[in-house]
């Protein structure tokens, strides 16, 4: 009799664990944008090659963990010369990727505060991202963003006409997922 009880317990545990699943990213529409401010103009560059991963309990509409990964050379500001300069500044040959791994996700309704580690330019720092999750029929959209300091990530601020950009680098993200 005991083995059967054990079996039922095991089934129950695995069944409960199965509630939290990796959601399937919808690549079309998912993107990440960075914004850089120079006294002469603002620069925005977007990557549509970003890979997001979310573990969530779709039935409870709860997001448990978030991660993101992007090849930094895929950011496009509409001016490849400028993008190339940006890649020089962040040493994209040595550090071609940026990634984020959440450590803690605090959810209040649709609002999320995601605490995690961002690895960028070979430096890993704690980052706090503010996001909003929109659950709809068969889809989840997560919008949000976070700011980082260029100097904190050991990045020399790029200059245009000998004038450096502001230290703040703002990231915004749109992550779309299909609910199975």
């Amino acid at each position, binding site marked *: 009799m005991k*083995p*059967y009880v*054990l*079996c039922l317990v*095991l*089934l129950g*545990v*695995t*069944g409960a*664990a*199965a509630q*939290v*699943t*990796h*959601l*399937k*990213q919808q690549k079309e529409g998912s993107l990440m944008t960075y914004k850089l401010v120079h006294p*002469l*103009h603002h620069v925005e560059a977007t990557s549509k090659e970003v*890979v997001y*991963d979310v*573990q969530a309990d779709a039935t409870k509409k709860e997001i448990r963990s978030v991660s993101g*990964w992007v*090849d930094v*050379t895929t950011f*496009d500001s*509409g*001016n*490849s*010369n*400028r*993008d*190339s*300069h940006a*890649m*020089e500044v962040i*040493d*994209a*040959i*040595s550090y*071609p*990727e940026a*990634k984020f791994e959440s450590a803690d996700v605090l959810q209040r309704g649709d609002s999320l505060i995601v605490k995690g580690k961002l690895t960028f330019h070979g430096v890993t720092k704690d980052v706090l991202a503010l996001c909003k999750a929109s659950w709809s029929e068969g889809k989840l959209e997560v919008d949000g963003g976070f700011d980082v300091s260029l100097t904190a990530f050991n990045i020399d601020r790029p200059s*245009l*006409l*000998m004038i450096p950009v502001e230290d703040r680098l703002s990231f915004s993200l749109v992550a779309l997922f299909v609910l*199975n």
Partner: protein
Amino acid sequence: MKTLLPMAVVAVIGGTVYASEIPGFTPLERGTGAVGLFSTPAFTPDGGPFALKRFESLQEDEEVEAARPETPVVRFDMYTETVRTPPLEILDLERADFTDEVALFDTAEGAPAHPKPKLLPDNMSLMERSLWGEGGIIRAIGFSSPLTPEVRKSELALRRTMLTIHQIGGFATLGLMVTAAYYGQRYLNLSRSHDRNMHQTFVTATIASYSLTALLAILSPPPLIRRDETSTTTIHKTLAWVHAAGMIVTPIIGTMIRKRSGRYSYNDLSTARFHQVSAYITTGVFAASLIVITF
């Protein structure tokens, strides 16, 4: 036997469900259902691209073929669609065109693979290719080492230095050009030899400064990224063709002006007018090419 059988059933079902939840497993490993279980050996963490080959060899294995369920459902988390076809056909990755998705992963760690940025852009100019290409003259004469990431980084640093001097040189050239135009206009108005000498001095300085500034841009190593697009940089380069033509034509016309017996002939006056207009257009276009780059 009575206790082992249900245990085995639970282990199979539970293990399959649990495997789909293990963080760090590649999406390909997170196949669900019976097929996920059967497909796992082909995509073991140490598999990498070789896993595909191993799997292809498994395809030829009649025993595996026989063990294949008939209508399973395979789900690859995040990256591929849910497909309802026989699994061994689905997992023929090349045929299903999942090659890009597979390339994204470093299956050894279950994480996206480290991207390797191209060291040289695809669309280099003829000058860049002949100078800085993998078999370019600069490398052939030993000025730069064979192309490696480290060498390319130092080339990009050189490019940055050259383009910074190019920016400074551009402003210096504009200053010289405007001064040359000022004295040229004064000479046309007042016919004083001092103005003529100053004009010629500044014209010489302008040509030297312009040539050096242009060479810094032309000879600089290529950028890391170059896309086909219209941007302020492409406008800057297009305008460069115009002011470069002006920089050739204007001094040549200037040397054709001859003042005889203290007076211009009709032909000389029209030549001087042409020189004057050409100089103003060149200066204006040159100034515009500087301004446009700031946007």
